[in-house]
């Protein structure tokens, strides 16, 4: 991997961190407000299901996670293990795919359930 690509990955992690900072704040505020009326699957689906705005918001959230976490994992593996760079990049890439797939599945699942 070229040094330019390495630097772009670092930059992507910094930018995704900025997105996550805002997204986590909105998410935490949202759940604190949401649990005021009790917490049940039906209530959550009633509020979240079918909402394009929330699906878009959580889509961005998942995307930022899928960018941010694997790049950090790549750094940790490179510093703390004897794995070769190709293995480190492979594991980080697979981790990104898992986060993206599981996250998007959850987001689309809730959107597909529709309101109430």
């Amino acid at each position, binding site marked *: 991997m070229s040094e*330019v690509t*390495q630097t772009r990955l670092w930059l992507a992690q910094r930018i995704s961190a900025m997105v996550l900072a805002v997204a986590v704040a909105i998410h935490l505020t949202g759940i604190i407000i949401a649990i005021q009326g009790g917490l049940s699957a039906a209530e959550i689906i009633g509020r979240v299901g079918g909402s394009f705005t929330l699906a878009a918001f959580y889509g961005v959230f998942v995307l930022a996670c899928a960018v941010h976490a694997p790049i950090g994992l790549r*750094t940790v593996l490179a510093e*703390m293990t004897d794995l070769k760079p190709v293995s480190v990049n492979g594991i980080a890439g697979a981790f990104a795919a898992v986060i993206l797939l599981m996250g998007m599945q959850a987001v689309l699942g809730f959107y597909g359930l529709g309101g109430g």
Partner: protein
Amino acid sequence: MSEILVVEIWRGAEDGHFQSFDVPRLENQTVLDVVTYVQRKLDPGLSYRFSCRVGMCGSCAMTVNGTPRWTCRTHVSRVAEDGQLQIAPLRNLPVIKDLTVDMRNFFDKLAKAGGAFQSTKARTDNFAQIPPADPRRKQADAGIECIGCAVCYAACDVVTWKPTYLGPAALNRAWTLVNDARDGMGDKRLSLVAGDDGCIACHSQQGCQEHCPKNLSPTAAIAGLKRSVAVAALKGKL
């Protein structure tokens, strides 16, 4: 003050051991004085490095009671714990023998980070006129007093974890040159300090500035490089 100082000194190479010596305690005694006493009076086979003895040359750095320090300007009274000193070679560099480490990696990385000044003028040109208050000059001045002692390099955990990391001294030097209006290397130097082994590997733990005997802040220099590298990457200039 105790009359005798018990000094443990590392002997051998990487797989060596500590050897204990009793050294007379003196007023205003530096750690380098102690090591010199051991070599001159107790064991002439002890290997260590020093030159100027006044904190200019950067050759006498060692690990004193677990902390990297310049030994010529470190008074025993400041670091001895219960009349005991443990003196070891610098961390993160291969040990040649006793207190002497192989500094090649450290100096090679200074060169690798574009540490050499690249002049844009000839000898016959006029002097560059740079006001001392110029913001970029101030940034350069903040890091220019580095004596290349490798204390920061020994203090850096990232160097331990990732031996290919350029390290605080090399990056600090690069930052002084990035801010030197007379230097002609420009964005090429930023390319040299970008990437996984460059400034972006720094975790800002600040061990370098905590231990720098000249009270410099390589952490601030590396943060400056990160900003410049980020801008250059966004502009496609790396």
